């Protein structure tokens, strides 16, 4: 049965390691062949096992995918080799130990070359662990992990001191090397535990996770075996052939498997990606806020299980119990007091951890508040955007219907007239020239109307995509245009109760502009005034020249339905129609087009309105020079001088 998180290749090798140690274990339990034979097999198996695991640490693995030929990061290449050296050191130490026990038939002296080899395994393993890339972490988080680790370390160190390290030092012979060796084993184990904590706290990147897990388990097994060995040696209860001996080959072979897992991770792409993530973190800056932001935008936030967060706090009851135990077993004055030192140190670290927790809570609260705020504003913006989109959709829908209306009506006239001609021809009736002229006249009027609508739509489309209109400039008598259009509008609205259009225009009001488009502006404004005066209230059209002769002003005033103030700012939006326009035909492109045309003539258009009181539209256009160019320039110069 393979754990889900473990790659198949690792599990496959792990099974052999388990099998080897299971057989070893069985041998030690069954004890065939008496104590000497068991001890001999025990000694040999302890270095053969780790040696068998050595090939797992070296050699090249085929890369799963060629990634532009870049090699795995240096750290990932060196870590397995260092682990291999650690395993080799242990195996060599064990061989020397075996030489003493099995060949020389004596217990290895303290210190001996075996100790040198055994002890050199520790720095290799530590270095291998420290080289592994850590998970990107904000500074505050790193501090938390460090404090949690410190809590556990103080707990373990206090225990170690009380039961192993202190007594070992006290008991060892007084020579300095002997003291160093006696203290080095428990100290080395403490360092290994610290490394495990480091590994667990910053458990490598995703690809390295299996390696980190295996390494943690192996180191814990080794450290426990070492500590039990030290304890048993201290109390003279250890002898080769003890079941405890399985711990070493199991631990070191496990480290070999971890080395293999690291190489596997280095060969896969994900390790490279993980390193990229680390680089990204470094680039983003060390600030906690930024790191969290990177977190928030990148991978989903992973919340570790509660038990893992609570684990460091086990140190508190453990040390507390030890304290009580030490209190009731006061005897050894050299060891006892240090338990109190450990307890005090633990209290200090727990306090610091508490302070950090409060600080982190504050930080999280601030972040939460900011997020909530941004979420609110985001929601608000989304709401507004949706409303705008819905309005736009409704408005465009209306425009399409209106445009269809404005095109279909003249089209009906053209088709109808054509049909009348056809019918006459079919029935063999006379087609008199006068009658035919009447038909064609109406048809061309309708066609012109269609053209005007089409042009208006084209202009609107052009303005929609932000293009300017190509004006066909000429000097236009605006007075004549206004009179013609006003007459046309009045003619088209002769129904009973239609508003009267009163006209007041100055003579010879010339502007330089595009005649067709200016006509459309006047047609739109005057047409609107009539259209929105359903009660027949009079419409006043007035064209005058500004006092300084610089501009002409067209004012169209009606006393119709008016425009609500909230609609005023949007009147010039293409396709937008005021709420009071319901039930009245129109495309809504008129005013937007008017504004664009007037502004392209360097003029202005303004609308003042009140619902129920009517609307006044004022168009100001620059006046064209009546006098010859030169004289006009001279006038201007004089004015400027004055």
């Amino acid at each position: 049965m393979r754990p889900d998180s473990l790659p198949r290749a690792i599990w496959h090798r792990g099974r052999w390691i388990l099998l080897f140690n299971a057989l070893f274990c069985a041998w030690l339990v069954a004890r065939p062949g008496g104590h000497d034979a068991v001890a001999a097999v025990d000694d040999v198996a302890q270095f053969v096992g780790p040696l068998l695991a050595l090939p797992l640490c070296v050699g090249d693995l085929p890369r799963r995918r060629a990634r532009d030929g870049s090699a795995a990061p240096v750290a990932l290449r060196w870590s397995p080799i260092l682990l291999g050296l650690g395993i080799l050191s242990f195996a060599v130490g064990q061989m020397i130990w075996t030489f003493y026990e099995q060949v020389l038939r004596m217990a290895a002296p303290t210190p001996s070359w075996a100790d040198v080899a055994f002890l050199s395994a520790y720095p290799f393993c530590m270095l291998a662990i420290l080289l592994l890339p850590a998970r990107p972490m904000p500074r505050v988080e790193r501090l938390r992990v460090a404090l949690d680790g410190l809590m556990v370390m103080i707990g373990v160190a206090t225990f170690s001191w009380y039961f192993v390290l202190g007594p070992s030092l006290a008991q060892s012979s007084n020579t300095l090397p002997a003291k160093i060796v006696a203290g080095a084993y428990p100290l080395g184990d403490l360092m290994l535990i610290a490394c495990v904590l480091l590994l667990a706290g910053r458990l490598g990147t995703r690809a390295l996770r299996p390696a980190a897990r295996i390494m943690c388990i192996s180191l814990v097994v080794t450290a426990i075996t070492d500590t039990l060995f030290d304890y048993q040696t201290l109390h003279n209860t250890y002898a080769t052939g003890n079941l405890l001996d399985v711990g070493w080959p199991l631990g070191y072979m496990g480290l070999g498997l971890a080395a293999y897992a690291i190489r596997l991770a280095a060969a896969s792409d994900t390790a490279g990606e993980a390193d990229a993530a680390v680089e990204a973190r470094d680039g983003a800056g060390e600030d906690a806020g930024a790191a969290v932001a990177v977190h928030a935008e990148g991978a989903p936030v992973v919340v570790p299980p509660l038990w893992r967060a609570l684990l460091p706090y086990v140190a508190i009851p453990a040390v507390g119990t030890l304290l009580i135990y030490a209190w009731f077993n006061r005897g050894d004055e050299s060891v006892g007091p240090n338990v109190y030192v450990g307890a005090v140190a633990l209290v200090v670290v727990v306090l610091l951890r508490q302070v950090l927790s409060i600080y982190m809570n504050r930080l999280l609260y601030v972040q939460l508040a900011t997020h909530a705020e941004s979420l609110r504003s985001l929601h608000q913006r989304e709401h507004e955007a949706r409303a705008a989109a819905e309005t736009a959709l409704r408005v465009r829908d209306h425009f399409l219907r209106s445009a269809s209306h404005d095109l279909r009506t003249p089209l009906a006239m053209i088709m109808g007239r054509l049909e009348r001609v056809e019918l006459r021809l079919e029935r063999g009736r006379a087609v008199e020239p006068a009658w035919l002229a009447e038909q064609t006249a109406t048809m061309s009027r309708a066609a012109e109307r269609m053209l005007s609508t089409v042009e208006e739509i084209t202009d609107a489309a052009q303005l929609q995509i932000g293009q300017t209109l190509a004006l066909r400039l000429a000097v236009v008598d605006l007075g004549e245009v206004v009179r013609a259009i006003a007459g046309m509008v009045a003619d088209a609205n002769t129904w009973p109760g239609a508003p009267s259009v009163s006209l007041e225009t100055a003579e010879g009001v010339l502007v330089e502009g595009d005649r067709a488009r200016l006509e459309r502006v006047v047609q739109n404004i005057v047409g609107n005034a009539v259209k929105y005066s359903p009660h027949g209230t009079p419409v006043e059209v007035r064209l005058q020249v500004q006092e300084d002769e610089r501009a002409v002003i067209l004012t169209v005033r009606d006393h119709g339905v008016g425009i609500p103030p909230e609609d005023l700012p949007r009147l010039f939006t293409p396709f937008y129609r005021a709420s009071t326009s319901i039930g009245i035909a129109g495309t809504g492109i008129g005013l937007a087009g008017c504004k664009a045309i007037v502004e392209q003539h360097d003029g202005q258009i303004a609308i003042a309105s009140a619902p129920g009181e009517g609307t006044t539209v004022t168009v100001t256009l620059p006046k064209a020079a009546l006098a010859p160019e030169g004289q006009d320039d001279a006038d201007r110069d004089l004015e400027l001088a004055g």
Partner: protein
Amino acid sequence: MFDPAEYTILIVEDERDLQVMVAQHLVDEGYRTAQASTGLDALTHLRTRPVDLMLLDIMMPGFINGLAVLKIVRDTPELAQIPIIMTTALADVQHVKTALELGASYYLTKPYKLREVTARVEGILRERSPRGRVALASRQIRIAQR
């Protein structure tokens, strides 16, 4: 024998050119016609002179549009029987539905064929004429007998 000259058709249309064209066509076809440019105009006409069929535009200036005229006509007992053909440039399903629910006999979407106008007008008038009613009744009896 169906004689168009027996019938007066009221054309309610705000587009003058269109109104005149339809009127001229119907006159050519032998009908008598009357014209109105607004809803109010049409209602005034209906109250003073007899009308046999009405062509009614939906979108018109003023407060009384075609649908309002239709409703008023259907709500007035002495006018309720006048057949009404709605004409509209709006191919708007909602308007058409409303018009038919309010009792319009038929609807025509602009641009319409003048032939279709006359065909519809004649069809509706034939069904309404005494002779048409007899024909309709005898057809229904035949169907019932089968």
